[in-house]
């Protein structure tokens, strides 16, 4: 058994859709237990990068590997197992709305179950499973919602269900794509802090893409800047300078700070004229 559990390595990864490069020659390594925030404008390739990390997108060039093993060299069995140990919290809510919370959380572990085993967990979960779900829901603060229908919960609570589902997978790596895009700023901070705490406690490797620069700076020791599919910087948060940030968001030096950036500044500039 090698010591590295939950390391993630991208080597010269290029992803092209119909000739347009969404990612270009990106290389980076996350050590087990490390936490990094992925920042950049919309369309800079953050989602694509995260999707290559759980083999949802195959890179056109280059290779992604987990604990030293390349996705492209895995058998479908191995790939299924690898995926089952990568938690992914999606941008838009990816829960099944008319299932109960417990059923959505249980569905996170399907990758490790047979068809019948999964069906049993879903329809007639054993006490053991129920208790484990309760525990996970408790850790995200919505334990009492366990038997509620998922679409009856608020957006913030649903986001927590999604986090619980990812945690129920018992992952080694947790990836999150804009996990706070559907919650208000106060909850956003609480959510990010929660994800960060849990990963710290369990020693999970964490990579989160964020629009909100402040949150990224506050909670993450490492920042990865993406622009037009290219890696602009990848270093410890305190060493990232203001000019690098400005360059990343296409702001000329000394421009107004837009705070959490949600669209290209050039467009904002136009509407101000």
């Amino acid at each position, binding site marked *: 058994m090698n010591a590295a559990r939950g390391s993630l390595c991208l080597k010269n990864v290029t992803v092209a859709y119909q000739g347009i490069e969404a990612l270009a020659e990106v290389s980076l390594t996350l050590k087990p237990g490390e936490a990094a925030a992925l920042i950049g404008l919309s369309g800079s390739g953050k989602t694509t990068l995260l*999707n290559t990390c*759980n*083999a*949802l997108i195959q890179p056109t060039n280059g290779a992604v590997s987990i604990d030293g093993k390349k996705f492209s060299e895995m058998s479908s069995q191995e*790939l*299924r*197992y*690898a*995926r*089952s140990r*990568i*938690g*992914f919290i*999606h941008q*838009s*809510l*990816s*829960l*099944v*709305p*008319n*299932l109960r919370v417990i*059923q959505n959380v249980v*569905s*996170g572990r*399907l*990758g*490790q*179950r047979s*068809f019948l085993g*999964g*069906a049993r967990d*879903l329809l007639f979960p054993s006490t053991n499973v129920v208790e484990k779900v309760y525990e996970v829901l408790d850790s995200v603060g919505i334990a009492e919602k366990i038997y509620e229908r998922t679409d009856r919960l608020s957006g913030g609570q649903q986001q927590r269900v999604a986090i619980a589902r990812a945690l129920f*997978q018992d992952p080694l790596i947790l990836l999150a794509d804009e996990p706070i895009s559907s919650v208000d700023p106060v909850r956003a901070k609480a959510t990010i802090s929660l994800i960060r705490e849990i990963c710290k406690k369990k020693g999970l490797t964490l990579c989160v893409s964020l629009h909100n620069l402040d949150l990224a700076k506050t909670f993450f020791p490492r920042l990865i800047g993406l622009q037009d599919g290219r890696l602009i910087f990848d270093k410890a948060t305190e060493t990232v300078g203001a000019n690098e940030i400005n360059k990343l968001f296409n702001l000329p030096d000394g421009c107004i700070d837009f705070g959490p950036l949600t669209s290209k500044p050039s467009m904002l500039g136009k509407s101000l004229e």
Partner: protein
Amino acid sequence: MKDHLIQLYRARPKTNFVRLSLLVMALLISYTWIGGGFLSSNNSIIQRTENLERFVGELKPYELRGESFNIYSYLSWAKTMMAEKGWQAAETTLAISVAAIVLGGILGNLLAIPASRNFASNFNRDHLNLSALLLAGPARLLLIFLRTIPEYVWAFLLLSLIGPNAWPLVLALALHNAGIIGKLSAEVIENLPDQPQVSLHSTGASRLQIMLTAVLPAALARLLLFFFYRWETCVREATILGMLGIVSLGFWIQDARARNFYDEMIFFILLGALIVVIGDVISTLVRTHIRRIF
């Protein structure tokens, strides 16, 4: 301001598609009217009126023809008709329709699984890979085959294979409706929001697991709606298919017509209509309920 609006109006994007199709439609109507043989008829208006009067006269029950109108005698006549043939025929019609839709629903929904391209492509977003075509293609062809052959033809073929009992009708309706339900269900499955499916796929869930966890709950309400809608149709079709010789309502309609008993014929036609209406009402109630609870 006004000039500007007029200018914008003139510059609006327009297509001649609607105008052109209206013109084509008008031409087609006049062509069929003139060329279709609707205008020539050997019967004069007077003759037609006479025919109609005689027909309406024969709709009155034969036993009651001499008497003056009395609702009780009509009711007792209807009662005898029901006792002789009506109840049994209505029961058979209903039984055929229920058996047919249950079989058709099971077969159709099972075929809908491989026929939906997102399942076939293992819930990868790009739907055009080879394995998807190899799975969804044949499944879809089979569904097309099942539904392009009309119930009536299926029943006719099966009747000569199985012999004269209710099964040819049940199977005919089941096969045709499996084709329709399979197609509709596959469309529903393909058009579901794919986020939950993709996210489960990304955690290593197999496609059958995704089907059970993400697709079935989301699609169930609509699948049930189609199921009950097709049941309505089955009730209607089970009536008509009796004309092939199986003792559902259609058989007695055909039988009465052959013997020129128009009073009996109209009675069974109305009974059939009543059954269809009852079927519609039940189906509508169930569907409203389904919409409310999901």
